[in-house]
């Protein structure tokens, strides 16, 4: 199939361009390592029973420094293994990022499309809701929602999903308003296609490029904000989650027990940095305005 070959060739060209970009490929390497860590978590550190997402407590070794036998990265003041928190925490981070991103993408694209393609009154309604959401700082709003729902990791996911869809809605709406003007959309309508088909075949596929970049950048931010919420204490206590690990080590930093907060924080930092670098690289590759540089 020629069509398939062209698509594959295009994909190959795109990935080559991404890999040529040093910061994007560095980001990609970190992301792949993180994903591998999440997938092979049970092989790296044995799962805790009954709940593998609770850090195992070793009351015999509280505040153990890195290098302690059995606790290569040390322990928290409650005897939680830092390595365990980091390795299994990567699973929770992947889950958080993927769930929130897919919910926000679905909601954002749907509502943004409705606003952009139907327009008129619906455009007004949807975009005013978006304005209201965007006028409140994201973190504060997520904090309030998660606080009302009660402390649990699932509520953090929910809160971030409620907060995050607005930027997609806004960008998709703008893209659709732009693509709708293109002549090929007219030429699809003049063929006699139904409005829905014109939208699905001609408008939407040509509006998605900027979304890819934003979603990539967003994956980093979601984990950052999620870790912040769990740092504040909006996740279950003792959860093997990066923000939680940082929170457990918070008191100890002054007393010289640097390792808990540092390792937990480093993971959040690396994750956010990696996605930002990949996102920026993708923007350079996909944005036609910077193409040909």
């Amino acid at each position, binding site marked *: 199939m020629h*069509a398939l070959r062209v698509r594959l060739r295009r994909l190959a060209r795109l990935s080559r361009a991404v890999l040529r970009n040093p910061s994007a490929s560095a980001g990609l390497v970190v992301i792949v390592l993180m994903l591998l860590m999440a997938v092979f978590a049970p092989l790296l550190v044995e799962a805790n029973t009954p709940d593998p997402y609770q850090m195992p407590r070793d009351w015999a070794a509280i505040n153990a420094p890195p290098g302690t036998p059995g606790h290569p990265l040390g322990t928290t003041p409650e005897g939680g293994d830092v390595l365990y928190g980091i390795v299994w925490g990567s699973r929770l981070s992947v889950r958080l990022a993927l769930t929130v991103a897919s919910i926000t993408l679905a909601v954002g694209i749907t509502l943004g499309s409705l606003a952009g393609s139907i327009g*008129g009154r619906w455009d007004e309604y949807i975009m005013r809701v978006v304005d209201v959401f965007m006028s409140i700082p994201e973190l504060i709003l997520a904090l309030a929602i998660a606080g009302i729902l009660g402390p649990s990791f699932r509520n953090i996911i929910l809160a971030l999903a409620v907060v995050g869809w607005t930027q997609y809605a806004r960008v998709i709406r703008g893209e659709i308003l732009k693509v709708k003007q293109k002549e090929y959309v007219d030429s699809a309508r*003049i063929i006699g296609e139904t409005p829905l088909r014109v939208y699905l*075949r001609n408008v939407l596929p040509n509006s998605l490029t900027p979304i890819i970049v934003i979603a990539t950048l967003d994956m980093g931010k979601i984990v950052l904000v999620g870790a912040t919420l769990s740092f504040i204490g909006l996740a279950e206590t003792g959860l093997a989650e990066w923000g939680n690990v940082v929170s457990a080590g918070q008191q100890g930093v002054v007393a010289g027990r640097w390792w808990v907060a540092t390792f937990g924080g480093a993971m959040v930092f690396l994750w956010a940095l990696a996605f930002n670098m990949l996102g920026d690289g993708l923007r350079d590759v996909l944005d036609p305005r910077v193409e040909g540089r």
Partner: protein
Amino acid sequence: MSHTGPTTATLPVTEPGDRTAPLLSLRDLRVHFRTERGVVHAVDGVNLDIADGETVGLVGETGSGKTVTARSLIRLLPSPPAIYVGGQALFRPRTACGQCAGSGCAKCHGAGYVPEPCQVCAGAGCEGCQHTGRHTLDMLKVSGRVLRTIRGNNIAMIFQDPNKALNPNLSVRKQLAEVFSEHRAGELLRDAGLEHEAGALLRRSASGRSSFLERRTLDLGPLRSRHRRLEAVIDEHIAGALADTHVPNPKKIMHRFPHELSGGMKQRVMIALALACGPDLLIADEPTTALDVTIQARILDLIAELQERRRVAVLYISHDLSIVRQISDRVAVLYAGRLAEVGPTERLFEDPLHPYTRGLLAAIPAFGQRRGELVPIEGTVPELVDPPPCCRFHSRCPHAAPACRHVEPELHARPSIQSHEAACFLYEQADALGVDARDMPSMGESGPPAPRVGEPSADEEP
């Protein structure tokens, strides 16, 4: 132009589906745009007929309403802001000749098509078909469903820039398959010999409605060979359409993406797309403007050839008078949303009636002409925001008289040549308008434009 104006119920109709009734009649078409500065009268009372197989050139400068006129008759304008204020766009579709099934015979005068008789009165003539006996649709009023069956099937359009008019994300085949699926699904199934044995899945596939999963099912299941047959028939249709527009190696080209083709090739694909279903009317909106001159000539030849072969009526929109002169049977000159003049091409070019047409022709550069010999039309096009009743051209007209500034001229034929009409008081009698004879313009006074101080003019802000 044989059938115009009001008719009575006693009008004699010779045969079902009057052959002489025009394919398309624009009757007092008015399309306005609501803007923040007021209502823009983009098209303000256009009357135009297009007969079967005729080429009508619609000329005018930028902003004169050419494109709005063309797009409004297939309702392709975004609304809002466009408002279809009034008038009718009566379209009378043709059907394939029963005798020769489209190949052309004596009965259909070689066209392969015959007028479709009115569904209400079967050709006897009723209110609905305006006593033409032909099936008549008002394109401004028909439902969305009817409109979609007309678009691409009976009326097609080609656009100015082929680089922008093809979806960059779909192969040529996918885009062409769309037309056939949309309008010829039954024919595709019949040609594949699947008329009676096609299940819901194949039917959906023929009409281009299959989802990704359905296509995989068709590829794997026991339906595979039938689906292959259907796909082969679609390929054949597409290759045929491309071959008609002289695309070399159509079987190969159809798998290409638009960015893999040259501009001229893309325009050929666009024309193939437009003519795929054998439309009655082709709207060509400056189809050669974006192409370079050598390709321009070839595309024009192609349009002329296909028109000759299929007897398609063409509404050719352009600001290039030399092209219009070359390909049109009749020319309509649009100025500021109103028709200034309509007439047979040669007559209009040799003996233009309206001062605007004369100005246009004087402004065409000719070979060997020296600098300074071109005569531009003084002034600019008036604003079209809430225009007062007047001749739209009066502020630039060398013959402008008081009557031109207060009364709106209508298109009228000159007594000598019925088919040549102009909207100008130069050719009218003062008493017919109820205006003082001294206020009428005359040919003699062809000095500079009359002073405009203190006069209400169209370019005044409302």
